[in-house]
């Protein structure tokens, strides 16, 4: 179980995350939803050591707070950054191989074969420059690159950003497959419909704080949440 206690992130005097606490049970999908600037990305970046933070971050007995990103990745916590963020001039294969940077060469080959068998599109586009793929394909490569590290906890920042509805459904299908395989997933997402459809736990963030938390049905039962995020 991923547990976060009293997490705080500040950029100078601006507090982006103000004492957030939550837990994601092993093998489940949780989603942080909220408007731009609510602190979702800062929370994910803090969990992977990309920004400095205060508070406690742990998986079981292992604490991650204060660790460098490479050490956190070694522990099996990997993030898919917002905007897909591939290396555009590198091929799909080179992007994927970098995902297994901390793995042995044998592990890397095995994982690459597994993922290419699972996602044939990756094999067919393997030598194509990643920057020339469509948005949906890039998202798939970004997720696959994170899977190359064989994470136990996958953090995905805005997986639907800039994708057509049909691509969003397909990203959702990929995430459900990963969930069925037992991966713990934490998503930061503005698209509340997507988050509600896919997550088992919703965490509503506003101004750096979690204001609602629970199963999607319970969270969406609040009229103000429905109005703010679903417009109904």
């Amino acid at each position, binding site marked *: 179980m991923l547990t976060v206690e009293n997490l705080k992130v500040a950029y100078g005097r601006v507090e982006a995350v103000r004492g957030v606490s939550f837990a994601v049970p092993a093998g489940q999908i949780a989603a942080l939803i909220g408007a731009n600037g609510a602190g979702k990305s800062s929370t994910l970046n803090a969990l992977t050591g*990309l920004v400095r933070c205060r508070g406690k971050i742990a998986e079981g007995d292992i604490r991650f707070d204060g660790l460098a*990103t490479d050490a956190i*990745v070694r522990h099996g916590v990997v993030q898919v950054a917002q905007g897909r963020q591939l290396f555009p001039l590198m091929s799909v294969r080179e992007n994927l191989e*970098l*995902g297994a*940077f901390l793995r042995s060469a044998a592990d890397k080959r095995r994982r690459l074969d597994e993922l290419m068998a699972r996602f*044939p*599109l990756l094999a067919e586009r393997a030598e194509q420059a990643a920057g020339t793929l469509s948005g949906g394909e890039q998202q798939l490569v970004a997720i696959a690159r994170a899977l190359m590290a064989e994470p136990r906890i996958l953090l995905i920042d805005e997986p639907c950003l800039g994708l057509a509805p049909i691509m969003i459904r*397909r990203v959702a*299908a990929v995430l459900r497959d990963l969930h069925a395989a037992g991966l713990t997933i934490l998503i930061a997402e503005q698209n509340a419909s997507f988050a509600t459809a896919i997550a088992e736990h919703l965490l509503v963030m506003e101004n750096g704080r979690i204001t609602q938390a629970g199963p999607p049905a319970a969270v969406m039962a609040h009229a103000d949440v429905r109005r703010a995020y679903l417009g109904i």
Partner: protein
Amino acid sequence: MTDMPDLATASVPPAKAPTAWRGWLGSLAGRRTLLAVLGIAALAVLLAVPATASSRYIVYLGTLLALHGVLAVSLNIIMGFAGQFALAHAAFYGLGAYTSAILIRDFDLSFWASLPPTAAAAALLAAAIGYPSLRFTGGIHFALITFAFGELIRLVTANWHDLTGGPQGMQLGFSPEPLLGIDFGSTRGIYALAAGLLVISLAIAAAIRFSRFGRSLVAIREDEVLASSLGINVTANKMAAFVITSVLAALAGTIYGPFVGFISPEMMSASDSISVVGMLIVGGLGTLAGPIFGTLIFMGLPELLRVAKLYRLVILGLIIIAVVLFAPKGVAGVIDRLIRPKRGGAR
């Protein structure tokens, strides 16, 4: 919309099967092999000319080109592969020349025995200035600190009269001792030393480029935060690249001393560091062959243009401007474009 392929399972139509040599040349492996063979052949010819020439001038020019080739190849590791703008390369070159010369003069070390402590001193200094500056992303801190360090080293050398001879420099009366039956003391022997270091530097750069370390440097160059999120220790990798770069420059400096017989703080000037940056940009930053092309243009072309007398630097300037304007990826980029297959499937 309904015709869109499934994201996870979609397949693309196979490209038309290429035929015969065009197919081989068009493949990535074929292109790389061809480039590598051409590059190695060209380098072998270039290195063989001074080794067999009877003219002392050709041997002198070959040694100068080889030493500057080492500087360009080594700077390419931190600047071309890792994307970090280092402006202290001439300082490390001079540091190597002075450290080796002082160790030989004051501690009676042989030329060969002076090499390990010289390399160690360069590595320590590179780590000392690299650590505080390379922790930051963006590279501007690193560029400024290396520039300031280069000037500091030059000024200290120019003002520490007792140790370095001050602005008048040091007259050197030593030559590398024979090793394994080879006389490195002659002009041709020093050329062999410089050419050998160039080949070793190229081998190190190639080994780095195709290693896990090299891939991490390229990832850092492209996007430091993204590289970090993949588990790459960004600061440690940049530091390692800078240390290797600086040690190679210092080793080139140790050969420059006995080659010219005189060293002065002038060899550490910032303009010399910027010239090496220019060699990389003109030759092709981040490519293996680019530093060699850049060295030939920057150092070899002015010699070929001697017939133009005072106008030769103007002609060189125009050539550099033309390369930068019309071939932003340098000479290596132009060659790559000429033999690159037309890519299909890109969208």
